[in-house]
């Protein structure tokens, strides 16, 4: 008696299990998009959510057409923790391999944080032939690798800004500042990681040195530094009017606070990740007025009236997840990459990686970040005009706690204003 | 006052104490005589409860299995399984072998640490007494205990035990490694404190000669077993004891 009851319950459970977890019985197998990244970090977290948002939107509209049938998209994410300093690269690579081998994704998006992890992952991706649309790591070295051996590494694309384009934006902003206020003394502070250091070096070489600026100091800080007093004192002593910071570590918040507390009379203009999102105003207790920051891609925690899609994206993200976007790097391209992929699959009409890659190379899409096209290094082209290329946005915090886009001019909402206590030289 | 009944202690499979029984009356000085590894220290540890602490720690570590059988009665209460700090509160204080002191602290601080369970005033009073008992310590009050000589350290160790104001004082080999002269002054001090404040003292020793004259009762332990017992005088007259334990 008792046993038969137990048996029935067991059977019922088994049946239930069968129906719930195997939707494949009646639906066509979904197309899997893998998201191997460091989900425990702000950028990773928001990138994943953006990808999920895009997938949900596409599925709502009926999925992706391959052949004669519509197939749903499905996200499989895996935390590879490569952004944490103690994690060895093989550990991250093993995660990517696991994702590829076990979930059989059609493509990967977002990808590793650290450039060295991306560089190492490229070989694995080439081995398994799974397209990767990277949106975080930004060292130009990976493009070099693609250009050197295009056939082998053709599966790797990058949608986010790379260091080269970041230089362009920084140089542009600096030029603006120079022409508007006559400032020409700069102090460069950067995190001691490949992309940041390279960016700093290139800005100095291609812009400051040529445009007649005086670079009064250049410091690189190991990840984890928690005191910037000596550099700030040097800034003051040497009379630098502009500080150019390039940081994406959480501790860079200390730099902002210290800049504030030490009342350094210079304009903070560059990239510090804590300054990108809307919550920075509260984080820094309303004391970041005048700070200028680059949001790496339009749509990543910033939107412009002139690019309607970016507004839709930022708003629907907030609606879907109940929280505003904060990361100035990653979310918009992550969101876009799903659309690019869906379109490429439909055009290729197949799930064959080589066919998808071929179509991806032909991408030309007006999206959240502007117009998206790839160059021969599989890097999305960034420029100043959203109708011609993808754009980033340089924003300034105003005294009302709002962010105004000040560069590039085509999408600018206002002019750069000097914060209180800082006067133009001319 | 203190009664031990059929005490057996095993370290793993090795028998350290075997069916040991003894009685201690109030105000007595009792000597436990036995050669090395006869079980004196184990007995002292069992009386003071240290063995309970050791057993718990070994068990947690998955190491040696220590088993204790038999009974230890104190003022007619069974304290076999009482933890050492509880026993200290009851008035049983052990001064371990090889002059246990805190080498990094000064002499006065050592006593203060020992007075953990006593009030400041009590510590001050007892400290006064200790310095009277061992005038040799007075000049080293501020000196780090680790730099004292062996005999002075032993004096300090006894002094520290006194700070706790014990009713039963256990001294494990207090004379070990002391020169004959030092031995004498320590023996005098023990006799003195037994007489003046009536503390019950149990001490263990390898060599009977210096301690036999002062003890009221003595037990001879060999291989964990009691072989002989009697008053100090009786033991002194015993030819076997003379042969075995009266080395220089």
């Amino acid at each position, binding site marked *: 008696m008792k046993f038969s009851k137990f048996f029935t319950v067991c059977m019922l459970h088994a049946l239930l299990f069968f129906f719930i977890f195997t939707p494949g019985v009646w639906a066509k197998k979904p197309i899997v998009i893998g998201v191997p990244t460091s*989900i*425990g970090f702000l950028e990773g977290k928001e990138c994943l959510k953006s990808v999920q948002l895009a997938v949900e939107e596409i599925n709502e509209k009926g999925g992706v057409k391959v052949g004669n049938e519509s197939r749903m998209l499905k996200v499989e*994410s*895996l*935390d590879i*923790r490569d952004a944490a*300093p*103690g*994690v*060895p*690269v*093989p*550990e991250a*690579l*093993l*995660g990517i*391999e*696991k994702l590829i*081998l*076990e979930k059989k994704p059609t493509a990967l998006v977002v990808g590793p944080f*650290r*450039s*060295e*992890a991306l*560089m*190492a992952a*490229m*070989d*694995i991706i080439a081995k398994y032939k799974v397209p990767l649309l990277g949106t975080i790591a930004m*060292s130009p*070295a990976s493009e070099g*690798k693609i250009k050197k051996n295009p056939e082998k590494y053709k599966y790797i694309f990058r949608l986010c800004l790379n260091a080269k384009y970041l230089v362009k934006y920084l140089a542009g902003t600096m030029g603006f500042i120079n022409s508007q206020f006559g400032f020409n003394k700069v102090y460069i502070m950067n995190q*001691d*990681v*490949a992309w940041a*250091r390279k960016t700093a070096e290139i800005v100095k070489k291609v812009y400051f040195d040529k445009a007649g600026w005086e670079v009064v100091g250049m410091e690189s800080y*190991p990840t984890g530094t928690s005191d910037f007093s000596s550099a700030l004192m040097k800034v003051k002593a040497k009379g630098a009017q502009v500080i150019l910071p390039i940081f994406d570590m959480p501790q860079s918040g200390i730099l902002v606070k210290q800049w504030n507390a030490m009342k350094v009379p210079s304009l903070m203009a560059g990239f510090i990740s804590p300054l990108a999102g809307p919550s920075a105003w509260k984080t820094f207790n309303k004391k970041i007025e005048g700070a200028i920051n680059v949001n790496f891609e339009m749509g990543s925690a910033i939107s412009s009236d002139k690019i309607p899609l970016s507004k839709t994206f930022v708003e629907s993200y907030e609606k879907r997840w109940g929280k505003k976007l904060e990361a100035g790097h990653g979310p918009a391209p992550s969101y876009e990459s799903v659309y690019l992929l869906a379109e490429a699959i439909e055009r290729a009409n197949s799930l064959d990686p080589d066919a998808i890659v071929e179509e991806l190379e032909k991408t030309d899409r007006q999206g959240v970040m502007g117009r998206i096209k790839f160059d021969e290094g599989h890097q999305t082209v960034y420029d100043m005009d959203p109708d011609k290329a993808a754009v980033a946005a340089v924003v300034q915090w105003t005294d009302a706690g709002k962010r105004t886009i000040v560069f590039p001019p085509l999408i600018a909402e206002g002019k750069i204003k000097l914060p209180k206590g800082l006067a133009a030289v001319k | 006052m203190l009664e031990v009944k*059929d005490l*057996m202690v*095993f370290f*793993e*499979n090795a028998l350290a104490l075997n*069916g040991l029984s003894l009685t201690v009356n109030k105000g007595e000085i009792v000597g436990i005589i036995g050669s090395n590894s006869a079980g004196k220290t184990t007995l002292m540890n069992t009386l003071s409860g240290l063995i309970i602490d050791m057993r718990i720690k070994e068990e*947690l*570590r*998955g*190491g040696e*299995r220590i*088993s204790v*059988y038999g009974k230890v009665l104190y003022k007619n209460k069974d304290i076999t399984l009482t933890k050492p700090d509880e026993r200290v509160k009851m008035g049983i204080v052990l001064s371990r072998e090889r002059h246990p002191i805190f080498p990094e602290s000064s002499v006065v601080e050592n006593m203060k640490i020992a007075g953990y369970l006593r009030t400041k005033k009590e510590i001050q009073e007892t400290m006064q007494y200790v310095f009277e008992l061992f005038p040799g310590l007075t000049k080293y009050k501020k000196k780090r205990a680790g730099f004292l000589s062996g005999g002075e350290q032993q004096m300090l160790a006894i002094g520290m035990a006194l700070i706790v104001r014990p009713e039963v004082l256990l001294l494990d080999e207090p004379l070990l490694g002391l020169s004959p002269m030092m031995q004498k002054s320590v023996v005098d001090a023990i006799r003195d404190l037994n007489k003046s404040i009536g503390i019950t003292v149990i001490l263990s020793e390898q060599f009977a000669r210096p301690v036999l004259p002062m003890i009221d009762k003595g037990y001879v332990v060999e291989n964990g077993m009691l072989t002989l017992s009697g008053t100090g005088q009786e033991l002194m007259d015993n030819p076997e004891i003379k042969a075995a334990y009266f080395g220089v």
Partner: protein
Amino acid sequence: MKKRKERIDRGIKARSGDIFALSSYREMMYLSAPRFVPIIGFLILPLLLGVYWQKVLLSVAVFALLAISWDILAQTGMVSLGQALFFGVGAYITGALNHYWGVPPFISIPLATIFGGIICTLMLLPVLRLRGIYFSMVTLIIPLMLVRVIEATKIFGGTEGLTGMTPLPSRWVEVYLVIGIMLVCLFGFRRMMDSDYGLVLRGICDNDRSVINAGINIYWYKTQALFIASSIGAFAGALMTHVYMFVGMPVFALDYSIFPIAAVVVGGPGTLAGATLGACLLVPLSEALRGFGGLRIVFYGIFLVVFTVAIPEGIFPYVQRKYNEFERWVEVDK
């Protein structure tokens, strides 16, 4: 009547290492089974596993090697917190050889093993006199420092590292090479630690002054142990470099220092087999936990705590003890 649990050893003679009493078939099984089961298991396993789990097995073997290397050091009285140093140095040597001069892996790996051992030994030579926790701390710090040095001086590709190493011919070579070496290390060094030479090494840990007192230069022996251990670690690093075709600062990551120790603590120190067993448990566990996503490391941590608390002596010694001893209740006789 009171009873007491008694432990009895299953014949001291059968275990004492040198005096074998191979009298019966059962006796022989009893002695040889624990040796053959893992060998055969490791040799067959790759054939049964898919590509991904093969990679995991590779990882197991690499961590087992690091754990063995840790255990050899620990048995010699040097508790290291920096296996990453050995791993990283090996990785960078083979990386540099392969990247700058195109030395093929089958030459660069052995070179990295030997020179990695020499370089690490030289690096730690000044601190050989340190004991206990101070030695541990120095070993913890040196890899961290090397990372900073590479970062600051931009040598060997700086923060980006070197990529595009020559891979090994096939994944079968990868996995069998590392398993083979691991088994050789496991049994070879177990044997060594049981020999007279090993006794001296273990003596240093147990009681270094007694060893000095025997007229033996403990620093020379410590140096040798250090060389052995760092060579093993360097081999692991060199191999991983060719498997993942990449070498960079993360080869000095804290994980390479901590997880081998965790493996030894879980498996049981002082046996080498325990170290291997620990790696065999922890690495697949960590992989299996990937399903938990972000919670993975949390669970991993909890497992570690539970292991260390539940079986403080380690699994292998525990199993070994149970394998070798009976327990029975005996009466406490009067």
